[in-house]
């Protein structure tokens, strides 16, 4: 949200996609007042893969082209419920991984053909290492990070920048049920950091930056020890 506000302040033209029509129009009005040159909208559930192609075409038609695509959808599945339900596990993977990959495939081909632009995707520090408390979500975000690595490698020669944004804990509706601690960052702070990362064309960005250190430490633990921890 705050990333879109930063773009709005700079007068950018935007095309927003979300599931709830009323919330979407509230966000669009806000961005218009804050200075966006033009705000188009479309209502879509990312699981509706069949409509991805027409969505991308609608965005291109509204804006006359795409410079930046930011994929920021996601759900935080309940790990315990996933363990008890194959259906819940697969749905979590679908939203956070496979449907995202489907959309990225279409966007990648378009950006490759236009030989420029930026694709930014919100991943998660949870994707850096599997933990018993959160590994379904972690697997989806981890898989996504690998996919983006490959995409970044492929599109480098076309001049397309692929950015993986890895926020730590963020105080948003998605984490409403999670007790807050000092590592939590506010959504505006994360959104603004996302905007800066996109404008600078970074590759993998931890938000806030200190998560890079935390995750480096977490990743460096040998599996023989890590598997004994309660994380």
């Amino acid at each position, binding site marked *: 949200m705050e990333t879109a506000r930063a773009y709005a*302040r*700079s007068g950018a033209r935007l095309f927003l996609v979300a599931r*709830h029509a*009323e*919330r979407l129009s*509230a*966000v669009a*009005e*806000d961005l218009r*007042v*804050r*200075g966006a040159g033009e705000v188009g909208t479309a209502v879509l559930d990312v699981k509706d893969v069949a409509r991805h192609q027409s969505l991308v075409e609608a965005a291109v038609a509204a804006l006359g082209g795409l410079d930046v695509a930011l994929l920021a959808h996601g759900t935080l599945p309940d790990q315990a419920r996933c363990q008890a339900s194959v259906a819940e596990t697969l749905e979590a993977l679908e939203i956070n991984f496979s449907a995202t990959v489907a959309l990225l495939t279409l966007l990648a081909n378009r950006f490759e053909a236009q030989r420029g632009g930026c694709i930014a995707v919100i991943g998660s520090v949870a994707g850096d290492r599997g933990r018993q408390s959160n590994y379904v979500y972690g697997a989806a975000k981890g898989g996504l990070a690998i996919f983006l690595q490959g995409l970044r490698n492929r599109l480098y020669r076309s001049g397309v920048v692929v950015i993986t944004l890895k926020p730590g804990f963020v105080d948003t*509706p998605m984490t*409403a049920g999670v007790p807050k601690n000092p590592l939590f960052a506010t959504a505006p702070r994360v959104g603004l950091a996302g905007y800066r990362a996109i404008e600078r064309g970074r590759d993998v960005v931890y938000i806030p930056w200190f998560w890079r250190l935390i995750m480096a430490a977490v990743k460096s633990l040998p599996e023989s020890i890590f598997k004994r921890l309660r994380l």
Partner: protein
Amino acid sequence: MGCSWGRYPPAIHTRVVRLRWRSDPVVLADVPEKLLPFAWGRSYGDSCLNHGEALVDVAGLDRFIAFDADLGLVRVEAGVTLAEILAVVAPRGWFLPVVPGTKWVSVGGAIANDIHGKNHHRAGTFGAHVTRLELLRSSGERLLCSPDTHADLFRATVGGLGLTGVVLWAEIRLARVAGTGIAVERVRYPDLDAFFELAASDADHEYTVAWVDCLARGRRLGRGVYMRGDHAPWQGAEASTPARARLRVPFDAPSRLLNRATIGGFNAAYYRRHSRSGGRVTVDYDGFFFPLDAVEGWNRLYGRLGFLQYQCVVPNDRPDALRGILDRVSYSREVPCLAVLKRFGDVPSPGMLSFPRPGLTLAVDLAFRGRSTLDLLDALDAVVRAAGGAVYPAKDARMSRDSFRAFFPAWESFAAFVDPKFSSSFWRRVTGP
């Protein structure tokens, strides 16, 4: 979300209901606790606290709805800060009709406290510029209130301390200005009589206020620096985002950092820095209206005990009451830090419980030192009551039930509009048994 800006008194809330989307259905009736809207916690005392009960957090309602740059009307959700509104409208030749001493307050809070600013003598209160608002009641009803529709509920909600329901959004009539700079003149004056002479020039200026040296006594009682300003073109860079603080107080200062010696030294130096004749300079609006916003968390300078702000108004024909108050503060053993003095104008306040009324208003920050601080303020209340004045609830944490009823005789008719599910620490204190 455990304290207000003054950090006294402490409060514990058993639940926080977060509102994020104005279009979402909200069921407040099922919440077992009493409710009170809350956004950024910039009220000083306990009017924004609901100890042992619940808060309805509207900070997530942070969206603009519409801005008509021709008519100067802006419609925003209740959690939008005045800082964000100014960042959007000021570059386009408009300004908020009324701004307080900090820009980090929400629109909902500005309405609930019917705030005032340095242009009260011309513009009246914030509520006088609210054209309409949507009020969510615990019954689930959403009522569009304005001076014409649900007019009584509108008059109760403006200045109603959040007790009539949750303001979801509001529309504000902006003021057209000559520029985002303020041409300001600062004149030091030696005593209270000199202040009254200077205040006679209020009519010629948009913004006026005086800083008062609250430790000056006797012949120098009420001495200070009188500031008057008017909008002017600003040549500097225009910020598209609200200017953030340049400095931050990262931890609680020792409680004795601010004492009568350090404050006395500061006051004398500040007073002498200004000349008797003034001289106009143009500054950016942040520097003129919101100097304290440059230091994030300045309230922590008072240490962990916090502080109280005391703001009162006494009728124009009772300058003796003002003298009595300043006299008591300067001769007390308390630590008055920052004090400002202004003459309110006679533009009527729209709210039943609005604080501003014609007269002289004094606001003083006092480090909280326990019983002795409360005793001094009780003594000041007695002076204000005898003069027929009032004390500002938005800054209060301690006024007595009887004082409140004397200051706000309309409280009983107001009480009829209080939502049955809503309450606050302040409200229970001044209406309880």
